[in-house]
């Protein structure tokens, strides 16, 4: 009896171990599949990027659609950027003032605020807002075009959808986001001046002079360069997510959502890389 009991215990243990191993195997398999999917997605995106690049250099460029997209992406985002730019500058000023006042260096305030807006705050905040507004807009638009067969319709009427839809949007985003950033920078500095004038009064000329005394070309140039990459990333991710939306209406929402998430993430990553490179060069 005893023997039997112990042997059954052994078998039980063996079965348990076997089950654990099987479970582990299953988990590994699942992870492997996940990894495969991720690599497939990266491969897919690379292919998409390559096709876009190829179509961008094809002979007939869809100029009208490009202009329409510039309007859509650039002009229609102006109100949002105006408000956020102003507030960004004002808030930065109000927050920094006490610290500088402690050191008795309030006169450095305009320069410090301008530098941080131009180098970092302006580009990144604007790009993140654009990732939200433009990325989701493009993702949802192309996603619904895909789901309602409009992209197929384009293809059978001998128009390459990537040339018509993607190239124009990516290019428009790449060109418009730097413009929006510069505009946001300008409004941010204006907002800063307004905030300074809440306490005491500084003439705009004096403020401007103090602000731009500390800023040189190397503050400005890398910041502008990186915004082109922000724009390209936002446009590409939005288009990719929309263009590859699955069947069914709910995938439109998913496309828009993941476009925003990935575009925002890319903006931050590109910013990190840009800062590193600038740091190395200086």
């Amino acid at each position, binding site marked *: 009896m005893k023997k039997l009991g112990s042997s059954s215990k052994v078998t039980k243990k063996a079965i348990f171990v076997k089950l654990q191993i099987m479970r582990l195997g299953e988990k590994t398999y699942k992870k492997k599949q996940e990894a495969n999917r991720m690599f497939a997605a990266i491969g897919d995106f690379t292919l998409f990027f390559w096709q876009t690049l190829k179509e961008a250099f094809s002979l007939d460029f869809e100029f009208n659609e490009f202009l329409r997209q510039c309007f859509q992406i650039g002009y229609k985002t102006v109100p949002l950027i105006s408000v956020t730019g102003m507030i960004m500058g004002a808030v930065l000023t109000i927050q920094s003032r006490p610290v500088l006042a402690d050191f008795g260096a309030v006169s450095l305030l305009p320069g410090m605020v301008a530098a941080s807006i131009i180098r970092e705050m302006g580009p990144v905040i604007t790009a993140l807002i654009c990732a939200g507004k433009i990325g989701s807009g493009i993702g949802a*638009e192309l996603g*619904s*075009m895909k789901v*309602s*067969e*409009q992209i*197929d*319709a*384009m*293809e*059978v*009427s*001998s*128009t390459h959808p990537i040339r018509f839809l993607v190239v124009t949007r990516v290019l428009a985003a790449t060109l418009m986001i730097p413009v929006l950033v510069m505009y946001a920078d300008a409004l941010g500095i204006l907002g800063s001046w307004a905030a300074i004038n809440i306490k005491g009064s500084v003439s705009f000329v004096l403020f401007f002079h103090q602000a731009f005394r500390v800023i040189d070309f190397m503050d400005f140039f890398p910041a502008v360069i990186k915004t082109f990459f922000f724009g390209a990333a936002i446009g590409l991710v939005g288009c990719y997510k929309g263009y590859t939306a699955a069947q069914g209406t709910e995938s439109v929402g998913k496309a828009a959502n993941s476009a925003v998430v990935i575009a925002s993430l890319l903006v931050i990553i590109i910013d990190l890389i840009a800062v590193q490179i600038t740091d190395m060069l200086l």
Partner: protein
Amino acid sequence: MSNKVGDIAKSSETSNLVIEINNLSKGFDDLQVLKNLSLNLFNGENLVVLGKSGSGKSVLIKCIVRLINSDRGTIKVFGKNVNELKSKELSKLRQKIGFLFQSGALYDSMTIKQNLEFPLIRIKKKLTKKERDEKIEEVLENVGLTDTLHKMPSELSGGMRKRASLARTIIVDPMIMLYDEPTTGLDPETSSGISTLINDVQKKYNTSSIIITHDIECARATADRIIMLKDGDVYMEGNIDEFENSSDETIQSFFKEKP
């Protein structure tokens, strides 16, 4: 040439093949949608393809214009194997094929006029602006939509959208028409209007058509010949009388199921 479906007695007027599909197979992941399907379309005929939803009807006609790449088998359109065409040749071939999408697929962001101009500008490059406008007017008149020129697709009713979409398809004078469920989701009256239009298009432009539907009325009104898809292959082939008098259960249920 046409002895593959020689059992259908239409050979006298339709001796020339327009589309020839042999042993076509297509699957998605583990779902096998089309299995060794063979089908011919003859010049000038209206071929109706019946089948339950999900039976692969849309996949079939999307394979013909290579919106979907098939796994195995050959598809010849005007004697050319579509799977072997280079992108330029494919684009040329697609210009001869009109595709009416199930959802209409009108471009949401464009007016009806811009929708119709879209293929016209790109395919009929030689037309002047005046000729284009005339053509647009003519085609819209043909489908009975004269005063919608500057409306957006979202402002039109379902039936009007289908007709606008049909107008966009026929504006470039296709030789083959592929209709994906042209009457689905429309009321009976509008449906019969669309069926009439399909017949008008065939007569006026002498097109050969594949009409996918599960609307029996539409099949009655338009079909020269009918095939029924089931389990990824042709289940039955015949004319409308043969289908209606069939004692086969699957076909009976199909013909009685719907009003």
